[in-house]
């Protein structure tokens, strides 16, 4: 249990390494002098000592959040560069730059300056493309990081606040992306803004006022580009950076979660210190992410606004789509049927637009933000959790997550229904109808399948602990019987498979108080019991030492260790059978003992 009372010191573990006891160099002395100067004025030394020996556990999935962080930094850097040349104005001028196809075309200053960044500023196109690619990568990384946190249960106490901060961050990232995407004022992004104006109008009661306020009059107006610019480069980045700072400070305060494993408990964190290992790894990883972004930006063209032309409300291109992260909302708009708009009380209620364009995103993120509190209420678990769940050990949570992902994907695919119809030679009407039906049918199916897969994987874990790993070696006994030799797994590998606890559903109370009167509190308790039943009625308990001993006792152990000469009871194993069912089919060897 106690992994921190190891008597051996660090030095004894590194006995084959030479000790470093040489006198400090002149350079080190100079650095020391500077450090002394700063510390005497700020007392930064103790904070430094605290930070630099912080331990971070190692796992590839912990890099997802890092990718998000670095992409954000890349966006901040390249974005600052872009502001040197970008002109946030919708004022109309006639183009007279170096890109010949646009010569003489009337366009906004925002569009002209973006074309100039692409053609007249040396390396400007590269910076623009890095900015766009990094923004896309930021939202991908944020999303996948969020999924990692969800599926491993890292949002549990004490990290609920950080989960909520994270959901706000990821929602703001969408808005920030959309604002930036709209700034060049090209035909595609302008069509996006045109739709956004339609979205605002759909808001009941205040819709037309909101539209006129945002655009300072009729669409498109000259106000929206400079306003979005301020939102994109000042307002949202300030909020994003502030929330991100809180996010990362809380990671330090909580200490990072770790995956379960031998020696890793709820009371420790096993890994490597910030200095030097994580400084090198995480710092190096920043450069790798930046490098890969630069390579992609060098080789893969993104958002060639000069090919789209400046915004004009009259023309439009087929296959108009937003950037990928807005795809799901666009897909929802394509799927919501027109009959959701109606006239009542002499007023127009545009729910066909309002639901998908205005409600969807806040509702999704509210549900996401509320999830830890729902799960905590169901489990009634008030303990701190620093060991992550393996997703299979939380089948309902994993199922719900996959269900959410499948809903998202159906909406996302629906936003490409026109392109799919063209490329796959399908009817767009059939595709749209299929997605409409699929949105209600597929997610519950995905939930059920995922939950079953999780339970099967848990049974497989039991199987592995009880009867060992399939070695692939087939053994023939003296009597001519065949069986596969199973290797018993060692205690370290076993611990990872048995360390978790399986929740039991809470019992439903009587629903009445001492006097037999139905109480309101009891109703909430009943709801909680029902949910708890939903979460935990199907469960697979981890193997206990007694079960393992029984499995060995039942002759399994002999079968594992058996050699052809000494093998007594043998059989052909069916490793796919569940651990719990195992006892009955093991009866025969037992009788032979």
């Amino acid at each position: 249990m106690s992994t921190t009372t190891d008597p051996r010191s660090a030095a004894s573990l590194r006995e084959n390494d030479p000790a470093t006891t040489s006198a400090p160099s002149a350079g080190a002395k100079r650095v020391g002098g500077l450090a002394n100067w700063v510390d005497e004025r700020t007392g930064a030394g103790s904070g430094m000592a605290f930070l630099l020996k912080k331990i971070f556990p190692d796992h590839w999935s912990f890099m997802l959040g890092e990718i998000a962080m670095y992409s954000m930094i890349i966006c901040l850097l390249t974005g600052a560069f872009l502001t040197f040349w970008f002109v946030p104005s919708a004022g109309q001028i006639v183009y007279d730059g170096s890109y010949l196809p646009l010569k003489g075309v009337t366009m906004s200053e925002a569009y002209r300056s973006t074309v100039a960044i692409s053609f007249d500023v040396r390396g400007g196109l590269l910076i623009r493309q890095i900015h766009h690619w990094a923004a896309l990568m930021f939202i991908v990384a944020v999303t996948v990081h969020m999924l990692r946190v969800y599926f491993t249960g890292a949002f549990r106490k004490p990290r609920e606040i950080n989960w909520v901060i994270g959901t706000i961050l990821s929602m703001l990232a969408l808005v920030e992306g959309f604002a930036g995407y709209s700034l060049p004022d090209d035909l595609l992004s302008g069509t996006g803004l045109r739709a956004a104006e339609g979205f605002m109008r759909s808001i009941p009661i205040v819709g037309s006022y909101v539209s006129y306020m945002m655009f300072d009059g009729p669409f498109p107006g000259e106000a929206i580009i400079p306003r979005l610019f301020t939102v994109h480069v000042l307002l949202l980045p300030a909020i994003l950076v502030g929330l991100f700072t809180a996010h990362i400070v809380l990671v330090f305060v909580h200490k990072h979660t770790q995956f379960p494993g031998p020696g890793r408990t709820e009371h420790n964190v096993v890994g490597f210190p910030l200095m030097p290992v994580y400084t090198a790894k995480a710092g190096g990883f920043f450069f790798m992410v930046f490098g890969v972004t630069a390579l992609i930006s060098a080789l893969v063209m993104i958002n060639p606004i000069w090919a789209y032309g400046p915004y004009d409300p009259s023309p439009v291109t087929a296959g108009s789509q937003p950037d990928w992260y807005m795809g799901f909302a666009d897909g929802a708009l394509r799927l919501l049927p027109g009959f959701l708009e109606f006239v009542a009380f002499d007023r127009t209620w545009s729910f066909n637009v309002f639901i998908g364009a205005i409600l969807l995103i806040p509702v999704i993120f509210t549900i996401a933000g509320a999830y830890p509190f729902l799960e905590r209420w169901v489990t009634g678990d008030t303990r701190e959790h620093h060991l992550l769940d393996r997703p299979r050990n939380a089948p309902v949570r994993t199922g719900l997550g996959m269900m959410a992902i499948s809903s998202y994907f159906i909406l996302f695919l629906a936003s490409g229904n026109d392109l799919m119809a063209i490329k796959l030679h399908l009817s767009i009407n059939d595709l749209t109808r299929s997605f409409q039906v699929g949105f209600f049918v597929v997610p519950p199916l995905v939930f059920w399948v995922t939950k079953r897969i999780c339970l099967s994987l848990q049974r497989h874990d039991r199987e592995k602990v009880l009867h060992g790993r399939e070695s692939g070696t087939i053994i023939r006994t003296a009597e001519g019987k065949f069986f596969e030799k199973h290797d018993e797994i060692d205690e370290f590998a076993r611990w990872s498979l048995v360390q978790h606890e399986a929740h039991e559903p809470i019992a439903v109370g009587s629903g009445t108080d001492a006097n037999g009167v139905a109480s309101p509190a009891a109703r909430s308790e009943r709801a909680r019991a029902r949910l708890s039943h939903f979460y935990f009625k199907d469960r697979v308990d981890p193997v206990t030492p007694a079960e393992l001993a029984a499995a060995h006792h039942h002759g399994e152990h002999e079968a594992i260790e058996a050699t052809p000469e000494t093998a007594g009871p043998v059989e052909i194993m069916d490793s796919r059978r569940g651990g719990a069912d195992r006892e009955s089919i093991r009866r025969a060897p037992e009788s032979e003992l």
Partner: protein
Amino acid sequence: MSNHSTTSGHESTSADQGRAGTDVVRLDDGHHVGAGGLPERFEDPGLPPHVHRLADRDPVAASRAERQVATMFGVSMLATLVFIVAYFAIDYTQGVFIPGIGSTNLLNVVLGVSMGVSLFGIGAGAVHWAKTLMSDEEVVEERHPMRSSDEARAKAVHLIQAGGEQAQFGRRPVLKYSLGGALGLFALPFVLQVAGSLGNPTKATAGLAQTIWDIHPLPDGTPGHPIRLFRDPEMTPIKASDVTIGSVFHVMPETLKDSQHVLEDKAKAAVLLMRLHPSQFDSGPRGQKTQSWGHEGIVAYSKICTHVGCPVGLYEQQTHHLLCPCHQSTFDVTKDCEVIFGPAKRSLAQLKITVDDAGYLVAPEGFHEPVGPSYWER
């Protein structure tokens, strides 16, 4: 804190197994069973024995790793130099063909690749350094519950209470409520200033309903002239005889030429003009209305989608359907552009047209309903 951070090791051997009940157990760490045979749950075996890396044991491997790291840093420096040279040397109009990517701008490719390699080299070198040469001995740090100690809590509560008492919050409720009121209200001017000055919303209802197809009476009180239909973007008038069956025209009103707000007016005034054979219209009342508002099978409809306002830019000549490229709302021209598929609810607005004395198409009156996306008051 240093006593909490110790280097790990393999600390409980398999001989420790099964001695549950003799250990000191933590009560907040799940359930434990007492002595008497097998424990209820397995015991954590502790960290597995550490396996040294090649570079830990073999100085040759270590110096090889050192060379590898230095090479990666070297490649990074080289790539940086390439970037600087390319920045000055390459003409930015020069194109290049790259198999699998196509023709692209040479300067962008060289700058991006060299910058990418320069950055990646530093990163890869640092990570390789960490993985081969820096200590890979896992270190254990103790966690502490997030909750502050009871003393710290009591102290904080005491400070707040004492502070409140010193400020005489409890004794002088007038102060409490007046401060609350002031703090509750002070943000209102800021909200009012922004919300009130962003745009004038009182014009919205009227503004959304108007287009430059609307005909206003002349100053002397006589009714205004009908407005000619012009080709978009050429801005030339359209003769009815030019519109052959099956053709489609993008149309703007003649009044756009005098517009002070070109984009805003265009955004509402865009019209599509199509000519169908009279027999192709639906025989029901909707088809008849369509025809009667047109001229010999030439009909004009607002191009602004009634869903969220994209231009309904795709006309299927064979089926006489108009398709919006944004969300695929489909309108049937033979039936007064009613929605036959997709998320839109309302038909596109029809513009009544006729011909003037010179044979040009004109609109004698504006739209009868607001064009474009729905809104509350329409």
